[in-house]
């Protein structure tokens, strides 16, 4: 059997492809997880019976268990239970979205609670509905409060995406495993993979810092 132990230009394409898969899954699950997590926080804000405590329990379970186990439960467990088929990418989408949702929920709840009750009480006395209070009073302040934790979460969730390689999604880490097996140059391969993740994390941190600076712009003294 021939062995191609040297790096080829094709490997560069493979790396880019892996990078794209990781970035795309990260972006998609951040958006989906964000929407679901905010939905759970709304259930709590409106004190919906049964659903609100259920969301809190689910978030607690997802937050306190390994993502790898959640992945296995969805990828190996759900198809057996529901007698359906799930592709690795579908399982990754479901798991990562759910996991992100749990952390978004926690951030959103503490951000909403950071807005004092005196403000919501005042809004109620002025005749604002609960939705108006949320939209006009709570949400703007909560958004500013929750942004710092959100930035930290995003960087963490980017790293979490690396676990989907274990169920066979060809993401950046899986490309690393493929190249590692073929070239037998673990130091070069894993340094490059690590560097690419590092650069992506830097990119996210930089983007978050810019947005946060804009959110805080109103606090800066601009002069008369």
């Amino acid at each position: 059997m021939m062995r191609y132990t040297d790096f080829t230009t094709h490997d560069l394409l493979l790396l880019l492809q892996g990078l794209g898969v990781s970035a795309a899954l990260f972006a998609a699950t951040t958006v989906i997880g964000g929407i679901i997590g905010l939905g759970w926080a709304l259930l709590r804000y409106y004190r919906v019976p049964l659903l609100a405590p259920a969301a809190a329990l689910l978030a607690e379970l997802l937050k306190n268990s390994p993502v790898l186990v959640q992945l296995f439960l969805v990828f190996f467990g759900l198809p057996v239970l529901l007698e359906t088929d799930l592709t690795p990418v579908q399982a990754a989408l479901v798991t990562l979205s759910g996991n992100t949702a749990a952390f978004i929920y926690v951030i959103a709840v503490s951000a909403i609670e950071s807005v004092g009750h005196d403000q919501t009480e005042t809004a109620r006395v002025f005749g604002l509905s609960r939705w108006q209070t949320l939209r006009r009073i709570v949400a703007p302040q909560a958004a500013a409060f929750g942004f710092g934790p959100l930035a930290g979460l995003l960087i963490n969730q980017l790293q979490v995406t690396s676990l989907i390689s274990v169920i066979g999604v060809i993401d950046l880490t899986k490309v690393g495993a493929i190249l590692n097996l073929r070239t037998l140059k673990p130091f070069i391969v894993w340094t490059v993979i690590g560097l690419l993740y590092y650069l992506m994390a830097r990119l996210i941190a930089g983007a978050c810092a810019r947005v946060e600076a804009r959110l805080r712009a109103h606090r800066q003294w601009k002069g008369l």
Partner: protein
Amino acid sequence: MQLQFDPTSLVPYFGDLAAGARLTALACALALAGSLLLGILVALMRTAASAPARRASAVYVDVFRNVPFIVQLFFLFYGLPEIGLELSAFATGVLALSLAGGAFTSDAIRAGILAIDPGVLEAADVSGLSRAAIYRRIVLPIALRSAVRPLGSVFVNLILTSSILSAITLNELTGSAKIVAADTFQPFEVYALLLVLYAVLTWVVSLSAGALHRRLNREHAR
């Protein structure tokens, strides 16, 4: 479609899962010790007067916090034998967990050190204590005491992260559950049980850390 959820048939496999849990506990305990040692060293470097020490420790924390754990793990697992260092999967796993945990631990301890009232350190300095004595008797006790709760959440993360060691053929709790799932053809029950087990375990750990934190800091409550 029939929904079947029957966890009772897993009972004969509890021994296997318990063996896996013991391995997880051992790996986490060793990695906790390693993380603490490394975290204290790095936290002292990060708060040191020497600029090269501060820079080197900052680079370490930055790298290990921003690269996924599984990449660090594969780097060590496949890389170390290349340079003639043949470690078992268990030793590699503990090493990787300690290195990653050290970065997060140093953050918690550094925050504890920075929170120390500068007056205390000045008083220690003028009273003629040696630097080693200041670190050992004043800085570290205060910093560690105020860092118990954050260290608890670092430990919780360490436990959750240890599941990734199953990716380098280590049959800790998650690894042994994979075998049980394959044996019983009941992956949903096995992983659902596992998920709840981890959640209970980490819940107990963070409750204990919180209780310990309150106990150690009860005279210093703000």
